[in-house]
């Protein structure tokens, strides 16, 4: 009984804040901003969603986020799995340093790199472009991807691969036919993490774009501006920004929990 109550409290704590924001997106702000919030279901309206999803200044950044998120994920997975496989299978001098280095990158605050990155992207004509964002995110996310994938590849028993060598498979075939399928759950979790990280980023997108390539978090944050904060629109934008990530997290939850956590614990 005590257990059930505690679990209940936990669920309220986890979900209530988000649900409150969802309510904000559905009810007129005036109904919620009083001491006795009026939750009459007849007040519910999807007007705010209709408005935002019909507004190109909102849809375009949303598309940008999707494009950048997917591209970054693909690039990170392709480059990362090759790198991680080598790090997982071969012993060579500097291997340990490289692995620690991958984790160390997590320690660098992006603020340090913001101005230099801006200068760098401009020099290559990639400031305020989607490829510019993809390249930047790849640099930041790749180390984490490699670090996680090394853990997963290490779990694939080398004996299986040795058998494949006897069957005269090439290295690449071995990776593709044996290592990848066996590490698939972990790879899926890693991919989801890569996508979420790039989809959610605000700071780099704020510094490295200026209108042509603005992403969803930048657009969402802009609901707080010179003009009065439109609570309903801000909440709606918040829900819309969070929902794809939530869906992804829910669909892939089995892999995420296994991949993220077991990889992390063993790494």
């Amino acid at each position, binding site marked *: 009984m005590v257990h059930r109550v505690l679990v209940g409290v936990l669920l309220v704590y986890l979900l209530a804040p988000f649900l409150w924001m969802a309510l904000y997106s559905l009810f007129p702000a005036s109904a919620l901003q009083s001491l006795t919030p009026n939750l009459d279901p007849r007040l519910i309206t999807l007007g705010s969603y209709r408005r935002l999803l019909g507004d190109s200044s909102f849809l375009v950044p949303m598309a940008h986020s999707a494009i950048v998120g997917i591209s970054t994920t693909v690039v990170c997975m392709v480059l990362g799995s090759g790198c991680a496989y080598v*790090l997982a299978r071969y012993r060579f001098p500097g291997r340990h340093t490289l692995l620690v280095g991958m984790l160390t990158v997590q320690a660098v605050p992006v603020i340090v790199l913001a101005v230099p990155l801006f200068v760098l992207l401009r020099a290559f004509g990639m400031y305020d472009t989607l490829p510019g964002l993809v390249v930047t995110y790849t640099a930041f996310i790749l180390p984490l991807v490699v670090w996680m994938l090394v853990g997963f590849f290490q779990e694939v028993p080398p004996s299986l691969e040795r058998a494949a060598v006897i069957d005269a498979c090439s290295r690449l075939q071995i990776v593709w036919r044996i290592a990848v399928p066996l590490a698939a759950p972990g790879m899926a979790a890693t991919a989801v993490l890569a996508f979420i990280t790039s989809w959610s980023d605000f700071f780099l997108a704020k510094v490295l774009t200026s209108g042509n390539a603005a992403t969803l978090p930048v657009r969402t944050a802009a609901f707080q501006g010179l003009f009065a904060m439109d609570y309903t629109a801000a909440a709606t934008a918040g829900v819309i920004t969070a929902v794809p990530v939530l869906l992804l997290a*829910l669909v892939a939850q089995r892999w995420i*929990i296994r991949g993220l956590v077991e990889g992390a614990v063993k790494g």
Partner: protein
Amino acid sequence: MAAPALVIIVLLLGYPMGYAVFMSGFDWSEKTATPPSFVGLGNYAAVMHDPQVLAALLRTLFFAAVTVGAGVTLAVLIAVLLNVEFRGRTLVRVLLLVPWAVPPVVNGIMWKLIFDGSTGVVNAIGLGLGIFHDRVQFLADPTWTMNVLVFAETWKLLPFLCLLMLAGLQGIPANIYKAARVDGAGAWQRFLRITLPNLRGPITFALVVQTMWSLKVFDTIYVLTGGSGGPAEGTTTINFLAYLVTFSNLDRGYGAAIAISATVLVLLFAVFWTVVLRDRKEVAR
């Protein structure tokens, strides 16, 4: 196969890093019409004596200590709670992911809706239940705002830490608990003697990554405080200060020096925890 990834990482992180170090050696203000002049370690010397930096540093350490401490403690307790078989356990574990999936920008908006001093729901509940006598201005007082920030960030980071602990718990063989029970150990005894020691791996890992993440916090502060790090710099962490100096004051050299000092701080913590982690692994072997 490893080369392309390494090249990208080194080029896109190494070069900017070097450039930032380079910038930090100059008195480089965009606002004065004079060209930047080389000052060596002058900016770092100024960082050491800047009361604004010191205040931001203390705030950062407070923020990191509480979020990491509370986060890890709560995570262990919640993991123990969820490690018991009960109906709907899978569902709860899935819902646990919700805060993790909420983007930081959205996290900022969300807590603003909740803690706003005149329209927030916490005030409505507090006044309704008679807990508050008057509206509490959570986002008007520097101390309160920092606490709201800590609360918001802890909410968001908890799921990841919980999952980490859950995985750790599942690695503990059930028969150890059985044996302990036979020996007459109580629930608390079992938690102290079996659960905690076996969670040392996940806990140490959580400390490493969460400390790094907490020291780097930016997005939530930006949205929660309308881009100001306020009120009265109450939520201006060292990272946020570096942002203000670089982008608002356009003092590139000094901003870079603050940011690099912050990086060194994070790295020191990372090295500290990594050493702890490695020791444990060797003992385990």
